[in-house]
């Protein structure tokens, strides 16, 4: 519990409406996008400017009070889960687009600006911000930096780390760090990369300068059906070997296809084992050439059916099924766990076979949705938490899947982050000396461990059990957001 003296000091720093401490005001902040983890915060601070952020941090530092930074609260790994005795620092009111420089192709924005709002503001210059996490209508750029968010277009356009230039960030003792620059690199260590994806553990961001890209002249998608997931997996590698880097390359297995089709009627073929969606974008002529190449490769790879979207309406329809895959699968069972491992793509047949065997072993069905281009696998494990023991079984199954991802040379999290959810699984991926070095990196910024303590990197004594994303009854905290 925070002391009354501390709370009154905090209230003196901010206007009355910027400090929340009544239970009914605090409840909406009890979880982020992973609602299985809940904890009502002691106090919520909603600063409206950078000076207030710095003052809050200084006060917390002086009083050795922990700080959990939160943006829009759409994260999927309990990274913004409130901690007892900590201030929940919500940056959503720092929501100004400060500047768009069309000639230099940059936007300077506050952390609470929504991802999609940047592209919307840049569209009049025919520019956009490339990373497009599925929650982009709601998630904010500060959180995107904290999580190094990706999206469907990562393979070609990169993650957040590839698309930002500069940060204004504050250390826990209230010092300003200006990281990166207005040019393409900066003097010294690459702290821009170190802060990106650091899950609020190193500093608090109050301004981000992002790169903007010219909007592609044209985007077109090809849909291909396969009678075998192994053939579909091989087709992905064959497309890349043919020299095409698709803007998006997605794969779904039989259960996911059927669920999606039943839910949104995208017109998917139902008599197949796997479906690929391959989108190419860019200069008009290049798109024509690439579509031709992709269709040839898909045919040679044994696709049973190939369709090219002939209009923007059809393109969106092809995507609608894939983008609705999570909620569609959510209709098949009372609960599901979403995993987020990444594997080298060549391991796909082996990993899918093992998942299928484990599915039989555990007696739980799995639907597989896959960002095939970059190897990011989202197996959705179906279960019913009301059946005794099923939750535990699903957790154990999920743990085995992530273990398998690490075993074949992959990672436990491709894009959702570690947060609190996967903290135990970090022990499988990193050795003790590596975890020690992570703690030392944190100590270089935050020696008192006040920023988001206990998240992202496990204490050494903690390396014990597995965790996973748990959604009850398809109820996400933001049911209106697409999840893919």
């Amino acid at each position, binding site marked *: 519990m925070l002391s009354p003296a501390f709370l009154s000091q905090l209230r003196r720093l901010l206007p009355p409406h910027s400090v929340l401490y009544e239970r009914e005001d605090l409840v909406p902040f009890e979880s982020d996008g992973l609602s299985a983890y809940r904890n009502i915060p002691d106090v919520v601070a909603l600063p409206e400017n950078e000076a207030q952020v710095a003052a809050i941090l200084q006060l917390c530092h002086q009083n050795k009070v922990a700080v959990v930074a939160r943006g829009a609260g759409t994260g999927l790994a309990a990274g913004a889960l409130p901690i007892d005795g900590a201030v929940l620092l919500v940056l959503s009111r720092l929501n100004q687009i400060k500047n768009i420089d*069309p*000639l*230099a*192709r940059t936007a300077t924005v506050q952390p609470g600006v929504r991802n999609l709002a940047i592209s919307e503001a840049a569209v009049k210059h*025919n*520019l956009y911000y490339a990373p497009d996490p599925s929650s982009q209508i709601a998630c904010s750029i500060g959180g995107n930096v904290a999580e190094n968010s*990706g999206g469907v277009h990562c393979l070609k356009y*990169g993650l957040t780390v*590839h698309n930002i230039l500069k940060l204004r960030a504050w*250390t826990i003792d209230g*010092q*300003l*760090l*200006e990281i990166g*620059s*207005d*040019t*393409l*690199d*900066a*003097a*010294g*260590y*690459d*702290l821009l*990369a*170190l802060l990106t994806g650091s899950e609020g*553990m190193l500093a608090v961001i109050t301004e981000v300068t992002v790169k903007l890209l*010219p909007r*592609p*002249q044209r985007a077109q998608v090809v849909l291909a059906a396969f009678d075998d997931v192994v053939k579909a997996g091989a087709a992905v*590698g064959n497309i890349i070997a043919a020299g*095409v880097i698709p803007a998006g390359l997605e794969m779904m297995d039989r259960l996911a296809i059927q669920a999606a089709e039943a839910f949104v009627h995208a017109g998917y073929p139902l008599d197949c084992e796997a479906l690929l969606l391959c989108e190419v974008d*860019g*200069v*008009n002529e*290049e798109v024509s*050439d*690439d579509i031709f190449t992709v269709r040839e490769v898909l045919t040679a790879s044994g696709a049973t059916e190939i369709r090219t979207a002939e209009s923007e309406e059809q393109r969106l329809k092809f995507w609608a099924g894939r983008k609705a895959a999570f909620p569609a699968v959510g209709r098949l069972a009372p609960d599901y766990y979403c995993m987020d491992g*990444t*594997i*080298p*793509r*060549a391991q796909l047949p082996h990993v899918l076979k093992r998942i299928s065997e484990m599915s039989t072993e555990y007696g739980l069905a799995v639907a597989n949705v896959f960002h095939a281009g970059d190897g*990011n696998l989202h197996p959705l494990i179906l279960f019913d938490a009301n059946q005794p023991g099923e939750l535990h079984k699903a957790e154990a199954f999920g743990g085995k899947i992530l273990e398998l991802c690490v075993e074949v*040379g992959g*990672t436990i*999290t*491709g*894009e959702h982050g*570690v947060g609190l959810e996967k903290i135990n699984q970090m022990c499988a*991926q990193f050795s003790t*000396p*590596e975890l020690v*070095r*992570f703690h*030392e*990196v944190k100590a*270089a910024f935050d020696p008192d461990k006040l920023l988001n303590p206990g998240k992202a*990197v496990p204490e050494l004594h903690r390396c014990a059990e597995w965790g996973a994303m748990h959604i009850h009854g398809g109820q996400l905290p933001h049911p209106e957001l697409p999840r893919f």
Partner: protein
Amino acid sequence: MLEPLIERIRAAHASHSPLIIQGGGSKTFYGNPDEGEVLSTRALTGVVDYQPKELVLTARAGTPLAEIEALLAEQNQMLAFEPPHFGGAATLGGCIAAGLSGPRRPYAGAARDFVLGVRIIDGTGQPLRFGGQVIKNVAGYDVSRLMVGALGTLGLLTEASLKVLPKPAAETTLQFELDEASAIEKMNQLAGQSLPLSATSWHAGLLTLRLSGAVSAVHAAQAKLGGETLKDSAAFWQRLRDQSTPFFELRPGASNQSLWRLAVKPTTPPLKLGDAQWIEWGGAVRWLISDLPPAALFAAANSCGGHATLFRGHAPASGVFSPLTPALHALHRNLKQRFDPRGILNRGRLYPDF
């Protein structure tokens, strides 16, 4: 293969003896003077794994870049950041440690953008692995990218995994006579359009643009842009990448002259810092032969949103890189201390005091 290196670093740690990490020695001119015995990575050679369909290559630090690029070329792939070789002996380790990229950088990404994972030996002799061999990976802090450009001060790189990309089917280079201010504006305008631009340069009244992509796309862009087609364009960009054109040579006898790299906001108007300039990276890099005092050039770059590096020439005592703010400098020292507590790895190479 790693054991002798681990032993050597452990011994140096125990005796507080500084080591100078060296691969091919192609970039010994870069950074501040360091002190100590040479620790060579040349025994650490070989491509460990290359999966063209995965777009991932893993190689040991001492592997020559030329060998890696030849292997990639067999599969019609490339290192898209177009790393400089500076004379030919460059190795993968040095390439990543220096973090330098070539002409394609503004359009394809930098060395740091393509690093997926590294293995290092830290300053206590502890082998560590960060990142991995997959394109998407957000587990743990991004220590692999922290190593890029750290000039070996945080650890000896022993292996790196990189994302590679297909070679473009076609490339062509166009030239336009244009004054400096108009060239800077044009570079920026074109970068905001859907065009297959892959390199830009301006020097002595000549704007040079490279287009890369599908044959049809390059032809369409060429028709749109006009200009004169440059023959032997591969050699032009390679000489720029490796700084083997006469512009980059320091004039004998002009002992105060240095080659400076000013990285600035790309739209920065012409710098009034002398005539000997070469512009690259869409306006973001201005190469400059100058005898101005370092402080003046650091200040000039800073006022244009960037930073300056004394690239070749006599290093001043204050160092060849732009000074950091006190808060950032303290953080750098602190990070160095965590990875190399006794300061034995490339001591002074990045900043003279650590």
